């Protein structure tokens, strides 16, 4: 509450300043945490079964949502794309439209958004609850570093899973577009695949998409493990951290996507 001696404006300025300083402090803490995760990553690769287990939880268990969503997004793209392309008499280009939209943008971005809500939130909740029930503290007392044993395998498990999930999303999307375009509407299959093959470049389109997925995966997993590790050890603390993971990851994915797109396709005169 503003006191009588302090004007409303000063109070607001003080609040805004406090919020900004807090945010910067937290960002600094998160950066130090990220550095610690990277320097303790040796065990995630030396003892690969630990990471393999996390690839199962983050990656394999996300397969259903990725496959189903990918197929539907591709089918919708097929319908909408055909509707527009047909006006200009170029409905055979549907394969190009569907594949480029998916491989360049929708595959990496939508797969990462789904991954953040499916796997990122689970990672945060798991680490947060391990902290709340003193499991991380117990590990420390057993002379086992929780960052090396718990955090790093989850981080790398997610980073490895993300590009694979992104590619799978795009593949299923193209299949969905094929179903709608060729099987339902009746576009010539040869034109659909042939134009797609000549238009999609491996390095410019597919590889850039994979790079995007990798960056999104690293961002989502870092946010997820940090929020979990930093969560106040209470029920509200863990639920708040889980929400922050999904919100912060989604914003990070969309922001990073813009930046990466600018760098990747600037040379194309876009």
């Amino acid at each position, binding site marked *: 509450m503003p006191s009588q001696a302090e004007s409303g404006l000063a109070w607001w300025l003080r609040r805004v300043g406090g919020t900004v300083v807090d945010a910067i402090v937290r960002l600094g803490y998160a950066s130090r945490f990220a550095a610690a995760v990277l320097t303790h990553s040796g065990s995630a690769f030396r003892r690969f079964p630990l990471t393999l287990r996390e690839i199962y939880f983050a990656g394999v268990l996300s397969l259903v949502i990725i496959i189903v969503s990918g197929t539907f997004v591709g089918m919708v793209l097929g319908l909408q794309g055909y509707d527009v392309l047909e006006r200009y008499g170029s409905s055979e280009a549907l394969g190009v439209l569907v594949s480029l939209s998916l491989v360049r943008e929708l595959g990496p971005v939508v797969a990462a958004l789904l991954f953040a809500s499916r796997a990122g939130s689970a990672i945060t909740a798991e680490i947060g609850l391990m902290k709340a029930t003193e*499991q991380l*503290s*117990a590990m420390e*007392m057993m*002379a*086992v570093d929780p960052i090396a044993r718990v955090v790093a395998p989850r981080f790398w498990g997610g980073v490895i899973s993300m590009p694979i999930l992104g590619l799978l999303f795009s593949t299923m999307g193209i299949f969905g577009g094929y179903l709608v375009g060729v099987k339902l509407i009746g576009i010539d299959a040869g034109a659909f695949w042939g134009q797609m093959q000549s238009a999609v470049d491996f390095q410019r389109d597919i590889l850039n998409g994979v790079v995007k997925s990798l960056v999104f995966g690293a961002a989502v997993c870092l946010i997820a493990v940090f929020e979990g590790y930093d969560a106040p050890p209470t029920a509200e603390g863990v639920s708040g951290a889980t929400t922050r993971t999904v919100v912060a990851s989604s914003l990070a994915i969309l922001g990073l996507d813009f930046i990466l797109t600018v760098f990747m396709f600037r040379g194309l005169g876009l």
Partner: protein
Amino acid sequence: MTETTDDLVVLRELAFAYGERQVLHDINLRIPRGKVVGIMGGSGCGKTTILRLIGGQLRASMGEVRVAGEVVAELDRDRLYALRRKIGMLFQFGALFTDMTVFDNVAFPMREHTELPEEVIRDLVLLKLHAVGLRGAAQLRPSELSGGMARRVALARAISLDPMLVMYDEPFAGLDPISLGVVGQLIRRLNDALGITSVVVTHDVYESLKIVDYLYFISDGRVVASGTPAEVRSSTMPFVHQFVNGEPDGPVPFHYPALPLTEELMYAEPG
């Protein structure tokens, strides 16, 4: 107690604060080898903080903690971890790893710190579980255990690397009378059979008086009394008397500090 070379843990003029809040002041305390020592006090008096200082999870703002002759705060990470391998700790609610079976929980420290073949680990784990009476529960998950069983599994895990020191954080909290007696007896028996030293932080007077060799009372972050169970029972000190007899009011007030009731009721602003 006077300081001797037989003391495994020595706390000297120890002070600790969480930010602005001073939790411990000028704590002097010794834990002799081979003994079970109780640290007793009300909730929130800084007992658990003492265990965290001994284990090096917190750093004291003043004074020092020595464990086996080494000043804990001066150890680098590797040496601190080497020391922790020789210390077992039982957390308040067990802190078992919920994603592993009972067997894997007890095997965890062995798998992390030794190169023992899996067959040897299997035998050792079963022996440890047998010592706490839960060999038959090896394949259960922590979620399938009762509170008392979870505490015993955590105890088996705490002794899995044959430590020199085991620290118990509220081992009796939330247990039924039978489990309470079982855990109490286990602490004593394991201490004597394995030749370890035990520190039991608790507020359960009745149970701990049965098993400890020596007791320290902490109140408001200070050691206010100490003695053997016999001395404690016959103590006339107001604090010890209030604590041992569970009286609601005394040197430890019933009321949290507040304005006098009449003042608060008469002059309180609505809303």
